[in-house]
């Protein structure tokens, strides 16, 4: 178990800078997810920690030791790959025991360790099978067992669940969390799926085009997105984004958007007084827009906006409504299933003034960050 410190790391592929001056520190025993869209550099970063890619600039420390020039086979880091990379010509037993055999561990010890790993991952009895004879979910667990049995300081996981179907994935996520609790290793996990990140991580490192957008706990990333990117990437359905201006209207502080004037709550009003008149980018999550009916109690910081329903998509227990407001602006919000809404209907909605995110149009950073 060790901590991982990434300091000012950059990586170039030819002229193209894939990772720019990244700083990251993962505490010992933490479960951190590197989250981001394709091409953001998360896998590259993971591979650099594993030793499979060279570090062009910056330093990598694992457990206090500088790892830049340490070759991959000498690092106390084990990795699970997206396609599992099980050795097809070896049985499950030999696959799991591969690293131990390389380290010349004694035969009896190998047997014990493999037995432990197999039982922890519910793979008992599969020792003699070959990779092509077992299911995808089992293969994924064999890959995990193979990495865990070496007792590494850091465990790296490269999108290990993306090849599993959804039912298996939920179970696998539970298992991973359980294993993390059991063995207490430092885990760095790469994913483009925010649900995985939000569910399992202690902290999320959000990456975009090689830069670290935000590094926080899941709750913080959701509630207080540091950048527009964070806000739009995290949260499902995707956040509503408008351009606007902070204004003073009828003695109320708020922001004018194409779809209407949104009132701020007291706290936001206080903090935006000094920047009245500035151009901003506004973000409101669909979850924070509610149908204005007898259900919703009107808070003083709610703004009512009239929309014409365009589309209704059922999400199971709730429905996503795509509506059109003033100036032909699209706005998305959620309603509970009992509601019976038809396209073409005129619907009033409440915008929750406490949950309005404001972003600086130039640098796209959250203007309300504490």
């Amino acid at each position, binding site marked *: 178990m060790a901590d991982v410190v990434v300091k000012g790391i950059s990586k170039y*592929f*030819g002229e193209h800078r*894939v990772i720019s001056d990244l700083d990251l520190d993962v505490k010992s025993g933490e479960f951190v997810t590197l989250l981001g869209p*394709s*091409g*953001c*550099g*998360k*896998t*590259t970063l993971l*591979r650099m920690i594993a*030793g*499979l*890619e*060279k570090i062009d600039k910056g330093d990598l420390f694992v457990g206090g030791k500088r790892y830049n020039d340490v*070759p*991959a086979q000498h690092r106390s880091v084990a990795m699970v790959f*997206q396609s599992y990379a099980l050795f097809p010509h070896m049985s499950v037993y030999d696959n799991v025991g591969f690293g131990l055999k390389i380290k010349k561990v004694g035969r009896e010890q190998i047997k014990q360790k493999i037995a432990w790993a197999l039982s922890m991952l519910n793979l008992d009895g599969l020792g003699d099978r070959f990779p092509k004879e077992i299911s995808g979910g089992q293969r994924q667990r064999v890959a995990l067992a193979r990495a865990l049995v070496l007792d590494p300081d850091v465990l790296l996981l490269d*999108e290990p669940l*993306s090849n599993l179907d959804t039912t298996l994935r939920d179970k696998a996520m539970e298992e991973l969390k359980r294993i993390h609790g059991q063995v207490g290793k430092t885990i760095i996990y790469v994913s*483009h799926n925010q649900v995985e990140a939000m569910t399992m991580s202690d902290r999320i490192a959000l990456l975009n085009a090689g830069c670290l957008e935000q590094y926080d706990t899941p709750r913080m990333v959701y509630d207080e997105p540091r950048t527009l990117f964070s806000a739009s990437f995290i949260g499902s359905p995707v956040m509503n984004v408008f351009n606007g201006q902070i204004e003073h209207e009828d003695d109320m502080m708020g922001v004018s958007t194409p779809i209407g004037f949104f009132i701020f709550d007291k706290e936001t009003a206080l903090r935006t007084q000094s920047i009245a008149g500035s151009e901003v980018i506004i973000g409101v999550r669909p979850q924070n827009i509610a149908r204005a009916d007898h259900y919703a109690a009107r808070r003083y910081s709610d703004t009512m906006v009239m929309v014409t329903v365009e589309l209704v998509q059922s999400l199971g227990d709730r429905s996503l409504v795509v509506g059109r407001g003033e100036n032909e602006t699209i706005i998305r919000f959620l309603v509970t299933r009992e509601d019976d809404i038809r396209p073409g209907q005129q619907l009033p909605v409440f915008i929750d003034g406490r949950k309005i995110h404001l972003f600086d149009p130039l640098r796209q950073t959250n203007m309300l960050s504490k």
Partner: protein
Amino acid sequence: MDKPHKGLPVDSLKYYVWLSALLIAVFMVISPLYLLIKYAVSDSSSINTGGSPIPLWPYHPTVRTFLYLFSDRQFYSVIINSICIALGTVFLSMILGVPAAYVLARYRLPGRKLIVLGLISVRLFPDISSIIPIAEFFIRLNLHNTYAGVILAHTLLALPYVIFIGMSAFETIPGDLEQQATVMGANRFQIFYSILLPLAIPGLAAAALYTFLLSWDEFIFSYFLLGLGKISTLTLYLKQKLTYSPPQNLLATISVCLSLPVIMFSLLLQKYMTAGITSGSVK
């Protein structure tokens, strides 16, 4: 998911080991060719050195041997023979092979693999073993020492390749084009002639070129079928020159003439060669 570029962590020592292995390999591949060319342009003092080391580059490089060769009437007739036989082989092989390739590529025949296997089964016999029966048979038919005999034999060698390469050439053409044409009322021959053939020309051209080269530098069959007669091919000419303590530069010059077309066109045919190799590994 972002896919990292294939950048290996370049370990200095490993890199230099690889580099030296590469250079050794390149040297082993290239040096014979270099020597061939060197001998082809050598003057006699560079060859008959009477004990002192043979120079790595001739003292007075000359094209005299080439000129001598090209002034020899027999040399010309031999080259023309080789060309004629090769062309004849191409003609016959394509006439037989292309339609066969078409059928095999286009129709879902039961046991297609078995048919293909059966067709190439005659080529499973070693050349040197099958030449004896064929030579005897041709003597019986008076095909011995004739152009026709050699062309027939070379066609036998080339036909499986033409079929194989032709099959892959036809298979790369999408079937919808033919279905379109059938819907529009064309019959099979028209489809073949105006649609398939033009599109398959690159692949078929490769097959033709491969056949030409195969006939051009074929030795074993030509030797047995023409060895004692009046017709000679370039390969036989080269072999004949070998028997009476020949000057080495002459041998090299003829060899260069023999190899040049093959090397040039082989480099062009790289792509089709790999397909031919895997089928040729049966040979």
